């Protein structure tokens, strides 16, 4: 009951956002599977560094699935279909990094600090609020989704292998529609509550926590960026050497 929140020295929200954008873009320029594995590895390290064990586990499983699919595909005989699937896989296994990093930023994000940080960067308030609501909503979605998948089970349209293989589109639709409808209601209520509490006032916002960039924010971010580029460089050298 009385578990207090741990105040680990957290990275500044601006640096987190920078890392999300950085990882998402650098993944798309990852030349080969080895580079991708390196990026996956660093993402998991980032999760672990913040003590998000569960998130790290989930990300790990997701990444492993993608890598296994890749491996599987390499055994498939060369054909148009295989090439097509390969192409889709190529896109997916890169896009996923963006979402996983988004979730990394979103978990335990202090939304009010985020809004303050964005204000200090002179980002227009409309955009900030939209982003803040989106991040605030991520943890709720998991709860909502559990209720939905429970009902699907009881109605015989559960998210099991049989239904996903036989009716992939329909099953997907059933899972998504209640989520969308529910999200619209929640977003509306959240926005109404935020407005009555003056979220879009023009006055400069203050924050009861100290939100500013410290040297250690730059240092930590720098180390991660160097690690990514370093890994990619080694990868390229190895490849050249291999030729």
């Amino acid at each position, binding site marked *: 009951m*009385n*578990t*207090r*929140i741990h105040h680990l020295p957290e990275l500044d929200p601006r640096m987190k956002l920078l890392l999300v954008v950085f990882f998402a873009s650098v993944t798309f320029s990852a030349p080969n599977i080895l580079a991708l594995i390196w990026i996956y590895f660093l993402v998991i390290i980032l999760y672990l560094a913040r003590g998000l064990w569960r998130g790290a586990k989930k990300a790990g499983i997701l990444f492993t699935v993608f890598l296994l699919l890749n491996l599987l595909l390499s055994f498939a005989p060369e054909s148009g279909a295989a090439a097509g699937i390969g192409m889709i896989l190529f896109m997916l296994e890169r896009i996923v990094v963006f979402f996983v990093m988004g979730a990394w930023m979103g978990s*335990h*994000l*202090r*939304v*009010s*600090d985020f809004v*303050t940080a964005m204000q200090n960067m002179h980002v227009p308030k409309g955009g900030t609020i939209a982003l*803040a609501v989106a991040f*605030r909503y991520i*943890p*709720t979605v998991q709860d*909502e989704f559990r*209720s*939905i998948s*429970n*009902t*699907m*089970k*009881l*109605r*015989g*349209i*559960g998210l099991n292998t049989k239904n996903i293989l036989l009716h992939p589109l329909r099953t997907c*639709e*059933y899972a998504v*529609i*209640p989520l969308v*409808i*529910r999200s619209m*209601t*929640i977003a509306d*209520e*959240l*926005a*109404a*509550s*935020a*407005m*009555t*509490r*003056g*979220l*879009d*006032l023009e*006055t*400069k*916002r*203050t*924050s*009861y*926590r100290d939100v500013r960039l410290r040297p250690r924010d730059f240092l930590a971010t720098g180390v991660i960026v160097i690690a990514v580029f370093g890994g990619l460089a080694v990868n390229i050298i190895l490849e050249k050497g291999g030729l």
Partner: protein
Amino acid sequence: MIQIEDVSFRYSNSKDDALEHINLHIRQGEFVVLVGSSGCGKTTITRLINRLVPEFFEGKLEGKVYIDGQDTSDLDIQDLAGIVGSVFQDPRSQFFATDTTAEIAFSCENVGLPREELCRRIEKAANDLQINRLLERSIFELSSGEKQSVAIASVYALSPKILVLDEPSANLDTSATKRLMAILDVLKKRGYTIVISEHRIHYLKDIADRAILIEHGKIKREISREEFQKLSNSDANEMGLRSMNLLSIKPHPFDFLKKGNDFVCLDRISYRYGKNDVILENVEISAARGDVVGIVGHNGVGKSTLLEIVCGLKKEMGGSFLIDGKPASPKIRNRDTFLVMQNSDYQLFTESVEKELYLGSGKDQALRQKGLALLEKMGLSDYLQQHPASLSGGQKQRLCIAVACMKNTDVICFDEPTSGLDYISMKNVSSLLHDLSEEGKVLFVTSHDYEFLLSTCTHICHLKLGSVADYFEVKEETAHQIYQILF
């Protein structure tokens, strides 16, 4: 403090006026309760005061609203933030921060108070409302009642002059409602002007200065403090309100003589989270066809977990589960039971009421007949082609019950079916459950709604510390026992 002068309002997506020629003056320091059945317009009046109407919920507004002497048509919602504090029905969807302290600071941060002042305000709010123990907690581990306290603290920290609450007790259990009442009492003593819309009025009996009865968007009647305190149950019920004097409610007369064999048996069912966190231990329940079992107990005692086990959504870790004398695995229970959740939004998947009904089952002639008859009974025949999302909350819930009946299961579970329902809707749910019981189904219902439990259930199962502390029939003699469990 608040002057509403001849206000009429129509929401832009509606054909009817939500409010018609409302005149209402509320003095400083007054505690006013807006009462009336669902959809009568009481929520719209609260929205006039914080200006969500017409700025956020758009529509056609006539007449004038003055708050603290200012004409609100010259103001924005956010200009009123320092004057009017608003608390809403669902504590889940009004939190912006993910930890309690940041949430309490939120309004103050927005108006730009300096940091020292902020910290002082947070401390004061926590002290005055006695929620110090809730500071620095993650909001995801709070109960609904605790969340509602934090929501009030958040608007209190900015020290507005007026507090507007829209059905704040709808998602609270009885002990949380008591705490809410204590907080409101503090606020009233500090001279706040408080406007609250409610149809559960028993907890406001001693605190309200005046009640305003709203019917079809008009002020039907003003009820003085004395009249309000003397309001009888039948008067209240007639106005669409929940009973005022809970102790004088009589239980529904059931015929206990025709008791059949046990149909559902839970034999020493246990459930744990992780290794040591015991939720349920050796739970034993036997219910015959026609039994309506009300599951009561404090928040977090495992009521919802028990329902999920009954439906096979969670697998018991010990004990056995029998339906009609045969062991029923979770998979069989998935097939042979249904759970009607508190929020129906999760349970509706298709684009029309008709398709919803036949989803997951075939569509032969006999089923069609059955489906149409069910919709007729639920009062949904006119909505056959409508999108489920466009139905009202009560209609969605009835559609879910119809879906449960289509599935032809003998066991149906209901999770808090009456939270936020006014008297008439509550009675409707109750009589639907009676019908199902008469068809020979076994129903499990979690609830902390005393009035509903008395008028609906045949048995009460009291969960305490993960096991069944009491299991008894609902009769006049046992009504008091139920009251004591809940209050």
